[in-house]
């Protein structure tokens, strides 16, 4: 697992987070929350584009042709595999996973790699409002199940205590390793992570998850542009 692998993982997760946020732009509990879901979705889709744009300057773009046909080659957390059916799932992702991605981006900005230092800094300003949104909704109380799942997947995203993410920290490329990132997330959310037992032997260092599976067919089709083609006039189909 190299630094470009990690950046691609953040990018894929931001892309999926943005899409899942956008799905709630007309289903949230209030008009303001609808608008916030749409705005945060656009922010995260924009962030993913910036992150994808960092891959070439980093020297090795890990994206291969399999991404065109195999949903399992995308590096998103399992939390984004299926559309969310409950507002609690939205809030847990917004408060915990979005903040976990921000913590990883902070680690990139605080590291020694110039392209990440410069290009990712603005994201941190925009993410402040995602954090305020998530934390406020979290305080209003949500179901336990999505909350615990989001914590577990955030810890999996940070990686094992002595894995390659920690090596990137020791090399100075990241300013925080998995342990510091977890502490930072807990400080931000003013909450301790629940006790989770993760079998790191089952952890996929490329996709940063232990669960098998991939995003649903409809979402993958949309990412590939297939859904747009389905509704296009016959002459436009290629």
């Amino acid at each position, binding site marked *: 697992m190299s630094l470009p692998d990690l950046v691609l993982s953040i990018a894929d997760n931001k892309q999926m987070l943005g899409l899942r946020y956008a799905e709630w732009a007309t289903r949230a509990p209030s008009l*303001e929350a609808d608008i*916030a879901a749409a*705005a945060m979705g656009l922010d995260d889709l924009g962030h993913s584009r910036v992150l994808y744009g960092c891959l070439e300057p980093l020297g090795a773009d890990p994206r291969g042709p399999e991404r065109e046909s195999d949903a399992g080659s995308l590096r998103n957390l399992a939390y984004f595999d299926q559309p969310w059916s409950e507002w609690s799932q939205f809030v847990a992702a917004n408060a915990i996973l979005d903040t976990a991605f921000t913590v990883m981006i902070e680690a990139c900005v605080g590291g020694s790699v110039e392209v990440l230092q410069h290009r990712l800094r603005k994201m941190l300003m925009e993410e402040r409002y995602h954090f305020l949104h998530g934390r406020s909704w979290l305080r209003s109380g949500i179901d336990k199940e999505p909350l615990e799942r989001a914590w577990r997947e955030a810890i999996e995203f940070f990686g094992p205590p002595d894995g390659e993410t920690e090596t990137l920290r020791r090399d100075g490329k990241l300013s925080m390793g998995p342990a510091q990132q977890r502490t930072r997330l807990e400080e931000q959310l003013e909450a301790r992570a629940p006790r989770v037992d993760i079998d790191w032997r089952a952890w996929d260092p490329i996709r940063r998850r232990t669960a098998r599976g991939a995003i649903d067919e409809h979402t993958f089709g949309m990412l590939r542009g297939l859904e747009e083609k389905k509704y296009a006039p016959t002459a436009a189909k290629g």
Partner: protein
Amino acid sequence: MTSGYKRVSGDAVEYEVFARKSRVDALHLVGSVVAPDDDLAMAYARATYDEERWCEMAIVRKEHVIELWQPGEA
């Protein structure tokens, strides 16, 4: 709209949103949001009124605005 109209219900609070595009402009009212706390109100204000490149944005609880007089009273 009657003068007694309120957008809020329950614990929600109405906030006025102010912004300006440059330092030489004065802050002016650009709209309002309804939220149960200041954090969410900031997130909503930024999401709702972010279509312009504001150099400054601020929110204030509507109940904290001290009215001197209303339309028709001057």
